[in-house]
């Protein structure tokens, strides 16, 4: 009887220790996770870069892609990110990040048309004509501000909230012309340059803000040769 009681107590203690260990294990794993918030125009490149980073380091990354403004709003409202990669460095203000890596990659804008419209010829004049259906980014979001800076006033038919939405409109042939990033043109086989264009600035310049060792280590990786090669192969200028 006495033995049994001890046994019972021991069992209970073991169980508690067991649960404690499990929690520890959970904590330990948590330490290795890095939260990366990245602008949607970086979707393909950052996915590849993070995959490589996971191979050479011990961390496991969780990436959230959305428009830069949208991400900044989430961070303001308490979302937790170790790294915030934005297409507009001003958005980092007031978010409390420790360090900022500015201009590690650049993206130029290009006027595209659906590949299926290969026979239709367009020119810069079409951007100001009412004849064509045109989708561009809305003013206030990075791709929209850059569009205005580079192309001036355009008679668009829809002002999208992010560049991927513009890309979808062109790829699905709902519009004749759209202004997207050079990287989008390169990665989306359903769109093509509307006319021969030089890849020139004004551009969008990307900045990565980071906090903590995990975040800062990742930012160091962004300037490494491995990362540079990934970004340039996706069409970014460095």
């Amino acid at each position, binding site marked *: 009887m006495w033995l049994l009681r001890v046994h019972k107590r021991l069992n209970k203690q073991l169980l508690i220790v067991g649960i404690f260990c499990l929690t520890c294990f959970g904590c330990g794993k948590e330490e290795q996770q890095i939260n990366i918030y990245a602008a949607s125009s970086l979707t393909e490149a950052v996915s590849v870069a993070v995959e490589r980073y996971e191979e050479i380091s011990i961390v496991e990354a969780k990436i959230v892609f959305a428009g830069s403004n949208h991400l900044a709003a989430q961070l303001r409202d308490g979302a937790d990110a170790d790294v915030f990669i934005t297409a507009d460095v001003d958005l980092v203000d007031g978010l409390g990040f420790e360090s900022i890596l500015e201009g590690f990659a650049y993206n130029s804008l290009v006027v595209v048309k659906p590949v299926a419209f290969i026979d239709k010829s367009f020119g810069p004049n079409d951007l100001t004509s009412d004849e064509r259906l045109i989708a561009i980014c809305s003013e206030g979001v990075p791709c929209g501000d850059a569009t205005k800076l580079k192309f001036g006033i355009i008679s*668009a038919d829809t002002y999208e909230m992010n560049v991927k939405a513009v890309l979808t409109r062109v790829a699905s042939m709902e519009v004749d012309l759209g202004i997207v990033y050079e990287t989008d043109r390169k990665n989306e086989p359903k769109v093509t340059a509307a006319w021969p264009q030089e890849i020139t600035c004004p551009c969008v310049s990307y900045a990565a803000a980071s906090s903590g060792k995990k975040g800062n280590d990742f930012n160091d990786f962004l300037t490494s040769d491995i990362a540079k090669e990934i970004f340039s192969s996706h069409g970014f200028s460095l």
Partner: protein
Amino acid sequence: MNRIPKTVVLFATIAILFLLSPLIGLLQRMPWSGLADLLGSDVVLDAFLLSLFVSFSAALVVFVFGIPIAWFLARSNFSFMKLLRAVVLLPMVLPPVVGGTALLFAFGRQGFLGKWLSDWFGLTLPFTTAGSVVAAVFVSMPFFVVAVESAFRSINEDLEKTAETLGASSPKIFLRITLPRIFPSIIAGLALSWARALGEFGATITFAGNMPGETQTLPLAIFLALETKPEAALALSLVMIATSLAILIPFRDQWLPSR
């Protein structure tokens, strides 16, 4: 009047406080001092007028086509009626963005109907105010149909049959017997579907796009402003709340289905 049980009052209070708290949060953050400037801007005025136009146009279309649908669903012995009703109500459960994409597949420039509209009549719905109305009708129609169908079902059909045997014409039966009985539900259904049309966002931005003065309704303007100019988003939200309250508060009890 019966006394309401205490448990009912308790649960109702909790639920009402829950519904009220986001509204309080919104009002608490409202930039009252700069409100006049924000409200006077062209963006707000354009979005407000467009929202009124789109939501009332949608309500009109829903009214004209919704009554026949409700009538048919309530009275027909069509064998696939359950399936048909599910199809009519589908926009209620479909995520609006999916609805908008589906509308594009149908009425977009490359859609199977849109292609034909564009080739034959030179008509394109996306990126036009008409497109916004189409999106609003699509999402708000089921709310009207549900309300009016149940009213049709609740009518004692003997009344209509009696009128018929007494020699009343069918338009007369509808106007004198049926209509007065379904009228409260028509009004309630209109209010519901109008409110749904006013708040419509996902299908509109996907199908009609976002163009100030043409397709940028209040919810679209709010969403864009949330990312770029949060104070303006709050001011726009206030306009939306005020508009819906102004329309919905005057609703009198006797217009709602009787107790």
